[in-house]
């Protein structure tokens, strides 16, 4: 019934629902009290008046004047940073892909030695290097 009470405050009830609610009001003092409390909450909220600080209109007009002069009014740092980061990230990924492709074309493979730039050392070569005497 509480749900119906809340709905009655925001929406049109059907004839049946309205009848049901009116009957419930007659029978339940608790429900009647709830309605009073909900109305009080509504009044508290609607009584809250907000206003901007002094000089708000002048600040807006100054911003509008700046806008006309082509000045940047506000820079949304987060948004700018995010969009710049995305561009840099995409450019970075593209550069890496191009680098990998060029390495593959020049070396014919993509093994560790290709990336480190070290020529493959076979065990035979290593032994000959170690045994080399002047």
């Amino acid at each position: 019934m509480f749900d119906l009470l809340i709905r009655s405050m925001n929406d049109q009830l059907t004839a049946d629902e309205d009848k049901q609610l009116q009957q419930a009001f007659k029978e339940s003092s608790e429900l009647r009290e709830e309605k009073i409390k909900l109305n009080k909450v509504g009044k508290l909220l609607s009584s809250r008046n907000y206003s901007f600080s002094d000089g708000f209109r002048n600040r807006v007009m100054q911003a509008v004047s700046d806008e006309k002069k082509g000045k940047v009014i506000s820079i949304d740092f987060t948004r700018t940073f995010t969009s710049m980061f995305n561009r840099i990230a995409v450019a970075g990924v593209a550069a890496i892909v191009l680098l990998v492709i060029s390495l593959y074309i020049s070396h014919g493979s993509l093994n560790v030695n290709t990336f480190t730039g070290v020529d493959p050392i076979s065990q035979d070569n290593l032994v000959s290097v170690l045994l080399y005497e002047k």
Partner: protein
Amino acid sequence: MPVGDYASYSDSELIEKAKHGEDVAFGELVSRYEQQVAGTVKGMLGDNAAAEDVGQETFIRFYRSLEKFRGDSALGTYITRIAINLSLNEIKKQKKVISLFYSRDNEEKEYDVPEERDLENESDTKELVDKALLALKPEFRSVVVLRMLQGYSTKKAASILNVPAGTILSRLARAQKELRKIFEPFV
């Protein structure tokens, strides 16, 4: 022309004048809708500096879109739509900053339910309403601000928030239940 003379013009006349570069006409529009925008952004964000900035940004966005405004909806509705969207964006931005520096547990404790006390003076009532609003989730808060603070109809609120009227009603019902709990010690 003195500023006072513009007060007699209708919104559409002022818009036409503002489009033709008469800043005083735009200033008159700011004066007319300042209170309404304050109610929307401060209801959404609280009575703080961020809300002042969003309020200012609302009018700047409106100024930029003067040419696009065709008068399909009432000017107040149009400006309120800008204000509510900017407020919701600001809340998202604030949440991002909070989630960068705090754990999820802290985020959930972002808003306090007001402490029990007598509402003897006006400032106590204001503080209580502000805290109660901020205790609501933004999607519920926006509905409460539009319906209960600004007095928009369910249909208008639905068009401003771009959601079905049924969604407005269900969100409002949930918000009222939560508000009822929050205000329990005071009513």
